[in-house]
């Protein structure tokens, strides 16, 4: 016997959570795009999507975030630090890869200097993961040692029932337990079986890849030039990535007032590392693509003991020229040793 959340109780669940002060965010399909947004009822949710086009990262590390509001007068400057709202929220129906992405980025935003813009939102959020029932050609969680039913980054884990009538529900963190307490009357005990987890084939050998990347002799390999020839240098792979976290800080306003903002930035852009002098340490697209792969599968591992990739496959799925991490790592796996 396991506890289940019947599908027809989802509306009541949402109402109960809202009453407890939470905003509920779930996958939605709006204006020709799927993303996480606030919902009021179960029918607002697009839970059948394999994966939303946008990630939940958007709600922890927004694409543009005001940091400081300033007003400039003749000899004085007023500034006011802006902080994220202290608002409790539930992310319902997060895929395991997206939830893992949050857990992967936690150490980065926390090492030495704590980024409260991230952590305030993290601490106010409960992640309700739903294990995948389906995978597509681009999914690659198993290749990065995760799985379609991984609980990494989750507070509550749901497994869809084979009958399609609901989910097995299980709290996997204290925050998750507290959340389930608010809806315990709506949960039932049942012996319904969970639907089988989809088979996601391993597309590359990540150990082999990491070994190759760790060899300094390969840093200037012709491989990087060949593999990135067709990269057009846009930022779609980085902006849609659940773990990419690079940003820019920009002042925006007029002569007298404005806002200093933290905006997404991408290592794909030439301007990302360009010095004012014109010198650019990463002056070719191949060096920028190398940086992205090295950062994810070598540097990040060295700093935080984990690869900065959760295997969602969005980079390949959305790439205008059909590139992506999968192809590069497959090619590295298959390089003659």
């Amino acid at each position, binding site marked *: 016997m396991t506890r289940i959340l019947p599908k027809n109780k989802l509306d009541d669940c949402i109402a109960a959570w809202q009453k407890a002060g939470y905003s509920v965010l779930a996958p939605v399909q709006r204006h020709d795009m799927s993303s996480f947004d606030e919902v009021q009822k179960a029918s607002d949710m697009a839970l059948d999507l394999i994966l939303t086009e946008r990630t939940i990262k958007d709600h922890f590390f927004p694409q543009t975030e005001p940091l400081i509001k300033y007003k400039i007068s003749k000899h004085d400057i007023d500034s006011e630090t802006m902080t994220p709202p202290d608002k409790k929220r539930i992310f319902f129906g997060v895929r395991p890869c997206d939830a893992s992405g949050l857990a992967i980025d936690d150490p980065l935003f926390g090492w030495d200097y704590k980024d409260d813009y991230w952590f305030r939102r993290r601490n106010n959020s409960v992640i309700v993961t739903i294990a995948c029932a389906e995978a597509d050609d681009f999914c690659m969680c198993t290749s990065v040692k995760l799985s379609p039913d991984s609980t990494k980054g989750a507070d509550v884990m749901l497994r869809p029932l084979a009958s399609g009538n609901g989910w097995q529900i299980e709290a996997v963190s204290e925050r998750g337990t507290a959340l389930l307490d608010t809806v315990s009357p709506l949960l039932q005990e049942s012996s319904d079986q969970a639907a089988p987890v989809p088979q996601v084939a391993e597309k590359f050998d990540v150990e082999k890849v990491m070994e190759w990347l760790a060899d300094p002799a390969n840093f200037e390999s012709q491989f990087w030039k060949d593999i990135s020839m067709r990269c057009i*240098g*846009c*930022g779609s792979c980085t902006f849609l990535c659940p773990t990419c976290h690079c940003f820019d800080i920009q002042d925006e306003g007029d002569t007298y007032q404005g806002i200093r903002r933290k905006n997404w930035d991408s290592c794909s852009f030439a301007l990302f590392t360009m010095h004012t002098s014109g010198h650019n340490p990463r002056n070719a697209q191949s060096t920028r693509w190398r940086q992205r792969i090295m950062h994810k599968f070598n540097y990040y591992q060295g700093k935080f003991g984990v690869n900065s990739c959760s295997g969602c496959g969005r980079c390949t799925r959305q790439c205008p020229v*059909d*590139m992506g991490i*999968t*192809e590069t790592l497959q090619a590295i796996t298959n390089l003659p040793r």
Partner: protein
Amino acid sequence: MGIQEQYRSEAAALLSSGEVKLVIGFGPGSTADRRRPLFARTPEEAEKLVLDPACISNLTTYLVAGGLLSDGKKVAIFLKPDGIRSLNILVSECQVKPEQVVIFGYAIENNEIRPLSGRSIGDFAEIGSKIRTATPPPAVQKEAERLEAMSPAERFEFWKEQFSKCIKCYACRQACPMCYCRRCIVDVNQPQWVSTSSHTLGNFEWNLVRAFHLAGRCAACGACDRACPVNIPLRLINYRMGKEVKEAFDYHAGESSDQKPVLASFSQDDPETFIL
């Protein structure tokens, strides 16, 4: 011999004779229905070239990227009619020397590949002139007309929703063969005309500026629209701009390689009904 095989062997011959340094074509993609750009430098690599109705990208983008043609050597490229029109525009704007480009032309009709005869841009005058009588894709036209029938406030709402999705990844710009500026206006910071933040207002700025820069220069290849990861219907704006230059100035972008860029030229009789 099918057209794919014929172009493969011609490409291989061009490479082995050294006439071209590179062939830009298509290869198999990561799934059965995807094709990806393929760069062949040797006759052996040319054997991997694929040509079928899934080859829809406009490869001209690569001609103006990274100083590819700056060494004066020749390059061969697979182009559909929209690609040929893009090339016409690039030539008319002095970005590409026509003698440096060998064209493998093809058209996709009823899900079949048809070869276009000719190898240099001059051989495709007919493709250019056909644009005068061509009808825009019905779906695009219909959607644009639906928008135009709206009140300005409704249209604003529509674009506000669409542009609010923009993440400023610049995939539209990078995929576009016409966006070859060494430094895009959004990357200029003294002064910073276009804000780099991707809030809705900044996204309006960016998308309007790009649309304006493309007015009369867009070959309607749809690269930006396909590249957009958040599905903003850029095709609609580009269609509307194309329609405007057509109606106001009888100008068809990409018609020939010696036409004058529409916004860099003028006629004394240009319409000015709106000027007081």
